[in-house]
């Protein structure tokens, strides 16, 4: 019997880590859209990265890493649904549309464009003041709608409506930006 010590090359690890760094935020967003729970989404993405690393030998580096990872995450998500006996909240058509959206973000960056987060920052600055304040209070300030409403001197329904309009405006801005 011959004994061998087998190790993965360090530079491949570095390569993988760099890809993880580049993609993890997008993947976290993706996993959260699927699972609707932050801690579950983080777990899904972590598990998926580990699964990917264990199968790194099989990955063709010329292909889209993000797309490959999202496939793994989808599988892990489906498994989680089965395990938790949850209802699937997303049909195949929606999943496909979501995949296309994520791929758009990705392709734009690969073309040398800014990440979607940088785009988002630029779009936030363009929001009307009233919408901007609602977004700041609820998403960035960590306040619940009712609390934010109190702080803004509004009622909860108004704040919710403003947030909805803000999201719509940001969507539009991102689309314009990605398409540009």
């Amino acid at each position: 019997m011959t004994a061998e010590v087998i190790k993965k090359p360090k530079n491949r690890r570095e390569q993988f880590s760099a890809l993880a760094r580049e993609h993890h935020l997008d993947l976290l967003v993706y996993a959260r859209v699927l699972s609707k729970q932050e801690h579950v989404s983080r777990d899904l993405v972590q598990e998926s990265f580990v699964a990917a690393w264990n199968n790194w030998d099989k990955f063709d580096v010329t292909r889209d890493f993000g797309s490959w990872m999202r496939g793994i995450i989808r599988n892990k998500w489906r498994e989680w649904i089965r395990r938790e006996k949850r209802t699937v909240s997303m049909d195949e058509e929606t999943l496909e549309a979501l995949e296309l959206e994520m791929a758009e973000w990705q392709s734009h960056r690969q073309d040398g464009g800014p990440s979607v987060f940088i785009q988002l920052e630029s779009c936030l600055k363009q929001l009307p003041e009233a919408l901007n304040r609602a977004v700041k209070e609820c998403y960035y300030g960590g306040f619940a709608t009712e609390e934010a409403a109190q702080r803004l001197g509004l009622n909860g329904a108004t704040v919710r409506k403003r947030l909805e309009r803000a999201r719509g405006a940001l969507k539009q801005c991102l689309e314009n930006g990605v398409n540009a």
Partner: protein
Amino acid sequence: MKQLNDDVMEELLHEHARHSGQADEAFLEELERKLDRVEAGNAEVSTVKSKKWKPWVGVAAAAVVGGLCLYTYQQNTDNSEGDIIAAYDAAGEFREREESHDAFKGSSRSKSKKPNVRGEVFLEETADVAERRPSSPNFSAVKVIGSSSASPLEVPVPDVDLQTPSLDFGDASEFGDAWGAASEGLNAKVPHFFAQRNARKQLHRGNQYSALIENRFQDPSLEAQKFSTFAVDVDTASYANVRRMIQTGIEVQPDAVRLEEMVNYFDYQYAQPKGEHPFAVHTEVASSPWNEGHRLVRVGIQGKDIVRAERPTSNLVFLLDVSGSMSSTDKLPLLKQSMTYLLEELNSEDTVSIVVYAGAEGVALEPTKVSEVGRDKIMQAMDQLSSGGSTAGGAGIKLAYSMAKRNFVKGGVNRIILGTDGDFNVGTTGTDELTKLVKEEAKAGTYLSVLGFGQGNLNDAMMESITNSGNGNYYYIDSIKEGRKVLLEDMMGTMVTIAKDVKVQVAFNPKQVKAYRLLGYANRMLKAEDFRNKKIDAGEIGAGHSVTAFYEVIPADGSPYGPQIDPSPFEKKSAEVKRSEAPEFKDMEELLFVKLAYKQPEATVNDESTYFQVGTKDSGRGWQESSEDFKFASSVALSSMLLRDSEHAGGGSWELARQLANEGKGHDGKAQRQEFIQLIERVSN
């Protein structure tokens, strides 16, 4: 260009808000650690079978963590770029196979396999998952007080929808055989244990709760199920949290509803212990209001009261989150007000220190005796606290422990009281490291309690987890009234621990009981042998406190519990022979025995526990003749099951819950029960 949907925007904003689009370093660090562990596991000496056999990357199972196994499954609609399963067996032979989810069905779950944090043993992905670490400090699945291998029942992954109420949680390797879909006495409705209660557009998605699995019915005639063993608990955070949700009109998340905490929030009139033990055990049996054919057993454990003047000296360190998010009126200001109640109870023998964390940790108040002058100084320091900055890392908690050690009172109450509205980025990263720290410090005599405030970022799961490890309690404070209750009444009591490592073991009479079910305590279950294991850490009981638990019992009717399964053609013995060889049981009048194990507060892990036992007979009465406390407590239990959409609620309804609560209201000097009745009104309308 496809439209981004609203959900995507929502998550994008949340993610951006977390880190301003910068890398999530905590996430990446956690990932790197996992990858390191994978690499360490892979860097094994591999053997090859012959010189001519080309070695694949084989992994010897042995030294590092145990056998590694990665799996996934391939969707029919998915392309082959999905994950691939690589299975490595102990011989170092590399196999590649795809597995469908069918692999989960009836998968062998050897007791020798170590469950992961969730208590699941059928998932063996990699070494680091087998001893799984949460992916973030915020993740904590089912936590366990007690044996690290004790776990709640596992949920199977059936490939068909169940048509009858399912008692089938799959192979519960720790607690006996899986049951099938027998529906003894239960109303037939489609089970929906974790009905997906998506927060949807509500903005309280930041709250994190660990998933709870309900206990199933158990057969006391089976060896593996003859005992029900659990650790006691006096946390009350779940009720306060649920109350807040109902009062603010938010949909209650089922996993936020911990039945035992809901029931134990309220005071019950148990008589004081009289004998040598610091507890009295009280039981009451009546028909189950939501399943008339069943019996309901209430077990109450009452701790001995102590005279306030006799309480030991206290050394308290308040570790306060003064980050920006704490500025709202229901957080830091409320915390300050609540603390004034506690200060009323302390005297010049006691010491209070204040450590803050927000960006950089710091000592806001050096250890100060609570004399008249000292009390003013403490209040002044509290007044000067203001929130600002981010809840960044610091050595806050370590500083707090070092302060506590400096003023350690031997034989006294040494405690860190952490006040926060969310995540604990307090100098240690990850729930595991934090849990390890508080556990070690608890062993050395400094306990940790947590006061939770606010909503939206409440890390309920982590708070509960670390207080269990820290031998402390977790409270959720949403009003000055609650603050007063917790800090003036509850905390003083729990700070004076009258016994620790308190475990309860209940044995039901198989001749009278076909099956029993413990309501709640799902993440506090212990193995039967843990009851006698002095090294198993369990809950504490403070002076004057009580612990209440409910069992639902299906009376014996001559037939065994569970599905009738024909013997295999290969078996030598028939089912009748097997049944006739079952152990004989004594004819006794008692319906059950409650056994308690506990240690004195100063006992060490190696000290023996003290045991005693109390038996109870069933008088056969209906719930209508039961005590007010029984009715009210059962109303709380039923309400909890309704909030969780539990199948075990049987014929229960909000109307019944209301009736029970009203009939059980009693004197209600603190108006707690009236408040609960109002919550029922609100949630049921």
